[in-house]
């Protein structure tokens, strides 16, 4: 670029944006890098919000990176909201009217909780869990609230429900159908999680959905369910799925579908504009389809790829097997690869946080289960390899299984043994995989 160093602008300050900034700096020592964020905070751990809400950690623990990192990266942080991208002039207009020029732009705007179309959903007392400000708001309400109702599915709904219960709020969790997370968990696993929730004091109502919200002076006072029951509450927690934040892209001529459409190098249809993270709907050549993911590790990997390519690389993003570890109903649960069927989840529309559309990819396989109280392992066995695994409770086997699924390691004679004597096969896997697990796809070093 004639006249001065390249200017890189990143919109969004989650893990994708941060990873991109680092990737750019590694390749372009002289470039100027700026991150634009509409949140008034420096970088914090979004997955940590659940543990902040539950009281496991104080707020200060969320700020994972030292302030000096921005200096070391020579990356400036700009607080503001972008309203328009002028892709011809390569400028971004902010809400306050100012303009930011760029040579390469990354859209890493993330996703927001989707809200149901019910009157009263804009009232005080309706909470979602996307940001640090949401968490603060939720905790502030929880201090005075007596009862809460939580709707939705997947991980975030439980983070809200378990968090509120941990804060001493009487918490009612409504499920539209008859079990939790029916798109990914099997009936026995749902049951284990539901028992865990009950143990934590969360009251579950099945076959129940809300019909309307009742309020007074703009505050939630009760919800009315579809079977006519009135449930008084001060808080309504909502986690029915997320919507990628594509407005800015849409209004500026960037091609979108459910997310921002990007090719394998994370490029959008417009020159110099890239997207990564929850907002990106990435082309997957193996399936000839554009896919959404909402996983932290994926977002970091996409941000790293986008940053490298913004700085001149031509590196394709290689979708890795989706992988997530989380705590649901008080149990650590690891989900690797294909585990679900192709059922839609009755409590969620589209995608949710900590989710991958690939988990709903139907596969031909058999499930083998090990059961011991609340510990449970489900393996999805394909041809000569493990295509997915779900490990709940005791995690001693999750690393070996991760090794087999993520590494695509052939099962060999273990495949047969798994079908005949699953426990013996699992013991062998445990032994074999014990050493040298360190290098499986570890993220970029910080």
């Amino acid at each position, binding site marked *: 670029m004639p006249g001065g160093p390249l200017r890189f602008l990143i919109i969004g300050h989650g893990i994708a944006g941060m990873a991109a900034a680092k990737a750019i700096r590694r390749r372009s020592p002289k470039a100027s890098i700026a991150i634009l964020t509409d949140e008034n905070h420096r970088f914090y751990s979004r997955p*940590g919000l659940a543990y902040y809400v539950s009281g496991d950690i104080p707020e200060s*623990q969320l700020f994972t990176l030292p302030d000096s990192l921005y200096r070391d990266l020579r990356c400036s942080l700009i607080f503001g909201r972008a309203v328009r991208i002028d892709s011809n002039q390569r400028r971004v207009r902010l809400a306050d009217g100012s303009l930011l020029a760029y040579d390469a732009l990354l859209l890493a705007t993330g996703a927001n909780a989707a809200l149901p179309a019910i009157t009263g959903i804009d009232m005080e007392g309706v909470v979602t869990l996307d940001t640090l400000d949401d968490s603060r708001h939720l905790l502030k309400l929880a201090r005075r609230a007596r009862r809460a109702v939580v709707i939705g599915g997947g991980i975030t709904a439980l983070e809200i429900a378990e968090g509120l219960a941990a804060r001493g709020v009487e918490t009612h969790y409504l499920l539209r159908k008859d079990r939790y997370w029916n798109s990914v968990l099997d009936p026995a696993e749902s049951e284990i999680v539901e028992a865990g929730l009950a143990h934590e004091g969360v009251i579950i109502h099945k076959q129940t959905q809300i019909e309307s919200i009742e309020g007074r002076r703009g505050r939630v006072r009760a919800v009315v369910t579809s079977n006519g029951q009135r449930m008084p509450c001060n808080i309504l927690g909502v986690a029915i799925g997320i919507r990628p934040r594509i407005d800015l892209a849409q209004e500026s001529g960037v091609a979108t579908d459910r997310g921002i459409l990007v090719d394998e190098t994370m490029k959008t249809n417009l020159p110099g504009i890239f997207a990564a993270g929850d907002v990106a709907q990435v082309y997957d050549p193996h399936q000839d389809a554009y896919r959404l993911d909402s996983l932290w590790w994926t977002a970091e990997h996409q941000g790293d790829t986008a940053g490298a390519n913004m700085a001149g690389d031509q590196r394709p993003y290689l979708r890795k097997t989706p992988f997530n570890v989380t705590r649901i109903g008080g149990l650590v649960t690891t989900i690797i690869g294909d585990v679900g069927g192709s059922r839609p989840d009755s409590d969620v529309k589209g995608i949710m946080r900590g989710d991958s559309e690939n988990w709903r990819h139907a596969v031909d396989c058999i499930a083998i289960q090990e059961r011991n109280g609340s510990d449970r392992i489900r393996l999805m066995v394909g041809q000569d390899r493990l295509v997915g695994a779900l490990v709940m409770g005791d995690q001693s086997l999750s690393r070996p299984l991760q090794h087999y699924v993520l590494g695509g390691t052939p099962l060999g004679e273990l495949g047969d043994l798994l079908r005949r004597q699953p426990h013996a096969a699992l013991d062998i896997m445990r032994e074999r995989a014990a050493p040298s697990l360190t290098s499986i796809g570890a993220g970029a070093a910080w």
Partner: protein
Amino acid sequence: VPEAIRCVQCGICSYNCPVGIDVRAHARLGKPVQTSHCLSCGECVRRCPRGVLRLEINPLFAELLPGLV
């Protein structure tokens, strides 16, 4: 010995370390905690909500020196 792929940097480990070791910083880099300050109490391993950490006996010393994965 931490496993970086599982870690989302929530910081429960560092917060609960009785001697104030920044376990999270080790987890981020995938480095074991090998300082002599570590009591190998296992609090970080127990509290980690994502199974990132594990206690390991350092083979060089074969004492209860912890390597936190």
